[in-house]
């Protein structure tokens, strides 16, 4: 089983960090994993995406060109990548940042106002983790327990307060129905 995941949005939305949590979640489950960021001239607010592969087998190309799961946090990324998603794949959309919907019937699309939910819950910058919660809920690629371990691994001990916020954000995403 292989999950080819593509996360995309603006720089500063925590796309790379969300990808890292995902990759660590795979690692915690003893899977093969890879994480590959897009990189370019250093610029705040530019477009940003991140490929994450989680698999039972050694990973070939770490560059995800046909994602089985797409997470988008801005409109340009949805327009750019929605056509590349495999049939029966997933598209998870931050509906507070993205105008429009997925016009494909062969993929499973989910919408969550992650950025709005982050603001409502005093979790500034937590939209990336909220949307991950939704991803876990709908795809079941790893358990919430594994995710929790991954957060603890990625967030340094001296920033334990951040870990708590991340877990809270995750729960919001998992609980969200829509």
């Amino acid at each position, binding site marked *: 089983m292989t999950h080819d995941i593509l996360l995309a949005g603006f720089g500063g939305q925590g796309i790379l960090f969300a990808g890292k949590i995902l990759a660590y979640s795979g690692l915690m489950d003893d899977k*093969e*994993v*890879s*994480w*590959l*960021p897009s990189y370019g001239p250093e610029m705040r607010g530019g477009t940003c995406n991140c490929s994450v592969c989680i698999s039972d087998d050694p990973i070939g190309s770490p560059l995800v060109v046909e994602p089985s799961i797409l997470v988008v946090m801005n409109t340009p990324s949805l327009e750019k990548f929605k056509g590349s998603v495999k049939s029966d794949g997933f598209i998870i959309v931050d509906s507070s940042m993205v105008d429009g919907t997925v016009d494909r019937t062969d993929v499973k699309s989910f919408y969550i106002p992650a950025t709005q939910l982050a603001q409502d819950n005093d979790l500034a910058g937590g939209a990336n983790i909220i949307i991950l919660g939704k991803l876990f809920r709908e795809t079941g690629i790893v358990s919430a327990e594994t995710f929790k371990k991954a957060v603890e691994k990625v967030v340094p001990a001296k920033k334990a307060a951040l870990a708590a916020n991340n877990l809270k954000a995750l729960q919001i995403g998992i609980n969200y129905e829509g």
Partner: protein
Amino acid sequence: MERNLMKGNEALAEAAIRAGCKCFFGYPITPQTEISAYLSKRFQKEGGIFLQAESEIAAINMVLGAASTGVRAMTSSSSPGISLKSEGISYIAGSDLPCVIINVQRGGPGLGGIQPSQADYWQATKALGHGDFQLLVYAPCSVQEMVDTVTKAFDLADEYRMPAMILADGLLGQMMEPVTFPEKKESFKDKPWAANGHGGKREHNIINSLYLQPDVLENSVKARFERYEDIKAKYAEAEMYLTDDADIIVTAYGATARVAKSAVNMAREQGIKAGLIRPITLWPFPVKEYQKAAETAKLFLCTEMSMGQMIDDVKLAINCSKPVEFYGRTGGVIPKPSEIFEEIKKYNGGAK
């Protein structure tokens, strides 16, 4: 051992520390700057030496100075910066000094781009500076293998008193994968030739690449080439994947080999007998592995992130005894497994 996720560039840096590297001299260039950033932090705590030089030229010459005194020294850069280092690398080779140079390749020529590329193959294996000389060139294809080859590169560089290169690319440098590290190396080969102060206990040592008498210079170059023969016999390395019964041998190194392997797997699922040869050393080139495969294979397909550079060595290795076709993307474009699979299908028909 605990597996941790680490960026390729940072893993290269940590691997150097584990291999006993005592100093690093570098200059910022994308996509390898994490190596400098990591070592500037770690060497402060480790008691090693990190220095950001005024240029790539200065950095490689600082490596020459440090290596002259017998310590393990390293520099890293990306394609345009390696061109600047080529003068110093020639002097290092001519002075029989060990060191490790990392090239996290990006697209060229000129300023080119900053996305992954493999267009420096010729430079690394044939012409990294003026004069008759070679570097050991390792071409890892995963973050873990980058760690493993850094250790090998330092050890062999010391053993044969020559520079060694890790030829990576932007994809390997930027990606994260699980990785484990060896214990830190503490004991090293003696270097009685080092210019670190004779202390009144021996004749003075001279580190030098100047020989004004042609016959003396010829002898020194010949002696170096005799060592090269020894290395060729002992240290050429390649991964052979499903090659025993393969009709089509795909061959690729580094990041492209990962893509090619996926394509080979796709071909096998379709009943096409494809296999992969992945050189791990580019110099010495794993000639025997290719020759063995050529006994049964019908066709070779060389894939690179370039316009076709390694393909020359593949043809030479098998003495052009089988057709060698090429598929490449360049300028920073990473080929997709499906593209290479299409090529395999094309030649599978053609090979019948």
